[in-house]
């Protein structure tokens, strides 16, 4: 354990005493759990598609150190630096996203991936947290006496982001981005009349997606009526939960990971349930709930609107993503390709989450120099 004196004035000591340490522990626990679950779930998938068994596990662990370092270094930054980082990062990733549409390779019917120096990158994953911070900035800017027309800029950025995501297409992420933005508007004090209007817009958007996209339609139809299509993944997931009990079948003894194509990504929660049981699943849910709720209740005492909106947005996005993924696994929501933060396999996702959580930790540090933030 670090033993740092309160009076120590070094950067590390200052960081240690101002950071949300409980949050830090919770994140560390999640990352550790993620490594274990990737080891459990991914060999079966790798074997099935003809790869060396620990292919995915090795790669995931390779991303571990960069992710931890990212969290640490970003959390050292001041809110002002975070804002700059987000603005630059957003511009860069938006550019990469557009580039992906042109140069990217198609996987499972969507163009989301960009090959960069032998690594596959999903720029939209990185754009997601930057976008949250940038919109928070813009919404806060609107409240300043002589600030920028933030609302309009934020709306324009949202449209751009959604447009590119729809072109890939990646409706799941588009929905997540839009929902997060709605959350931020809500926190920013959007009148309830508008909230109702926005909810209506969401329904219309969902309806349009249902009517215009055969893919979305089949997903929803299958959820509403499992008999109609092959709800195979869900059916297998249900069996996984059904056979788990308190402590599961035991590590490595799971069956569904051998049949569910996305066992190491979208359905890792079901694998965790089958092998490790209800107790571990409740621990996972508790960790996500702890991070989201502790974060939100902590920034209630914040007296800067930007921090409130940026941290609130990041936490809402994190929480929503977890809720949707677990909801799908538990057959509470239609199947939607959304990863479970820190637990699902995926390098881009892990690094992007590290950035998001690094920014969150930086924004929620105590006793900082506020600078001239609104």
């Amino acid at each position: 354990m670090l033993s740092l004196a309160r009076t120590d004035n070094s950067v590390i000591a200052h960081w240690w005493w101002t950071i949300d340490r409980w949050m830090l522990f919770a994140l560390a626990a999640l990352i550790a759990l993620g490594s274990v679950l990737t080891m459990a779930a991914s060999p079966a998938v790798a074997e099935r598609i003809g790869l060396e068994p620990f292919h995915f596990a090795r790669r995931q662990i390779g991303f571990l150190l960069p992710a931890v370092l990212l969290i640490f270094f970003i959390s050292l930054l001041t809110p002002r630096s975070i804002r700059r980082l987000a603005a630059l990062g957003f511009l860069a990733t938006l550019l990469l996203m557009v580039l992906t549409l042109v140069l990217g390779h198609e996987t499972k019917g969507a163009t989301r991936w960009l090959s960069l120096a032998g690594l596959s990158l999903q720029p939209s994953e990185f754009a997601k947290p930057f976008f949250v911070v940038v919109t928070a900035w813009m919404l806060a800017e609107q409240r300043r006496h002589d600030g920028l027309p933030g609302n309009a800029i934020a709306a324009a950025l949202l449209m751009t982001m959604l447009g590119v995501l729809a072109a890939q297409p990646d409706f799941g992420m588009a929905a997540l981005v839009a929902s997060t933005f709605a959350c931020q508007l809500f926190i920013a004090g959007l009148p309830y009349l508008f909230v109702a209007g926005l909810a209506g817009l969401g329904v219309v958007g969902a309806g349009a997606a249902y009517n215009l996209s055969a893919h979305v339609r089949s997903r929803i139809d299958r959820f509403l009526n499992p008999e109609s299509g092959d709800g195979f993944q869900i059916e297998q997931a249900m069996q996984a939960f059904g056979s788990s009990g308190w402590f599961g079948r035991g590590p490595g003894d799971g069956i569904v990971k051998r049949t569910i194509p996305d066992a190491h990504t979208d359905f890792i929660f079901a694998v965790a349930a089958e092998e490790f049981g209800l107790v571990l699943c409740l621990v996972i849910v508790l960790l996500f709930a702890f991070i989201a709720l502790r974060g939100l209740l902590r920034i209630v005492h914040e007296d800067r609107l930007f921090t409130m909106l940026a941290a609130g947005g990041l936490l809402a996005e994190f929480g929503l993503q977890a809720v949707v993924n677990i909801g799908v696994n538990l057959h509470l929501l239609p199947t939607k390709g959304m990863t479970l933060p820190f637990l699902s396999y995926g390098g881009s996702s892990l690094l992007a989450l590290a950035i998001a959580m690094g920014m969150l930790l930086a924004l929620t540090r105590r006793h900082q120099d506020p600078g001239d933030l609104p």
Partner: protein
Amino acid sequence: MIDAPPAGQPAILLLGAREQALRVGRQRLALVALFLGAAFCLIAGRLVELTLLRDLAGERRASQAAALKPDRAEIVDRNGLLVAGNLATASLYADPRLVFDVDGTADKLMATLPGLRREELVERLQLPRSFVWLRRNLTPRQQQEVAKLGLSGLDFQAEYRRVYPLGPLAAHVVGLTDIDKRGIAGIEKSFDAELRGRAAGGEPLRLSIDIRVQHAVRDELQRAVAQFRADGGGALVQDVRTGELLALVSLPDFDANDPAAADRDALFNRMTLGVYELGSVFKIFTLAIGLDSGATTLGQGYDATRPIAISHFTIRDDHPKARFLTVPEILIYSSNIGAAKMAVDFGTKVQQHYLQRLGLLQRAPVELPEVGMPLSPSPWREINTMTIAFGHGVAVSPLQFASAVTTVVNGGIYRPPTVLRREPGELPGQRVLSAEASQAMRGLLRQVVLQGTGKKADVPGFHVGGKTGTAEKVRGNGYARRSLLSSFVGVFPMHEPRYVVYALLDEPQGTKETHGYATAGWTAAPTVGRMVERIAPLLGLPPVAETVAVGELGGRGGGNEGRGHKVAAQ
């Protein structure tokens, strides 16, 4: 949207607006937290539900078991004995997507379930489907052994299997179903839809067959087929008042529980699907037509001194008396010449008319799918009329023939044959012969057994009447001398006919006891006699004193309704 404060306002107010925004923000953050917290609680609850509270596999089994009801009605005999029923079994299937080790799974199954083919098994286990049958209808022991193998991707489906507890006993009537319980022969086929429809109500389908009678008849026929080394045989018992068939046997037959073991010959119903030229038994109709049409009377006679030569054909008697024969003598001694002359007397038109009304020229209206189309000559010349008079030239199914005999002895009313039980109130039928002609025929048929070719069919106390028929089987364009179709139609008790018993032997061979004869009088007639002896007590008929003559009884009138067995007291 959030409006910026109007420009030019004092800074203190601006500060107030900022505080206001933060206050709203705090409330809203709490609401977002509340919402997420609720979502996580919902998730935790659902987790507990799925992992602990719900037994999904159990639910699936229970719903499967609850949904599983016999989907086919039972078939019972006329007394309610089970003939075709349903047995709950387990069938093994696989979800090939969940079978990870195809070879290992195949090896273990091969060692446990005999009779599986490895190639086929391996192929099935790799089909891109979610459901393939591996083996239907396992025994409980087999099911347990397969379950103990603990193979992934395999499961059991409870289902009902069609079972025939009596094996081959009534196989040709009941028929059989395929593995998916679709009727493919017999009553199972012709009443397929109805049996499915009735399954819900649970009301079984009731046959006219009396299993006790069926067993006795089959047993005697089997003995006769073995004794005379016949290719096969057939027998039936028909109620002359209702047309119901109490027994219908065709040998060889098959076990409907194991249809794969049956060859084509065993699946062939000689009694309904086969059509044959039955020979002298047809003389019954010739006499009945002659008497009913008024063309002849019991007191008349015909000259049978010499064979009849017509076109390229000579009609002779098998046991020529070479003299003038009275009408009764023509039947008693089975004279081809006499029958032919009598037929010429009433003519082709009359013959066709009566044969038609007796149901001999069209398919038997029985409920089985296996019904043969009778063959009749076209054009129908006088030579045909003459040969048909003694049973050659028209080929009919034995069932058709028996139903026509039923008409001759029951007072003259044609009752369509049936294998389903008829309620007393609903008897279809039409008059074909007069009661007087029918009464006269009873006397004549009794005489055939008392004095003529049917002596060996007599059973003391049961007044059997009947007629023999030995036909040479058609081979190519002619008749095969040594390939016989020997049959005997019996009726009892002759003073008040209740049942027609018909037995037919396909190519019987003579034995030492029969002095080498394979003709009906030596083979089929004694077989019918033994059948009568066994079934009469089952049918509740008491023996009657031998002194009662048919003629005496006939004096009381031609009807046979409601007279019971008063004669027995005499």
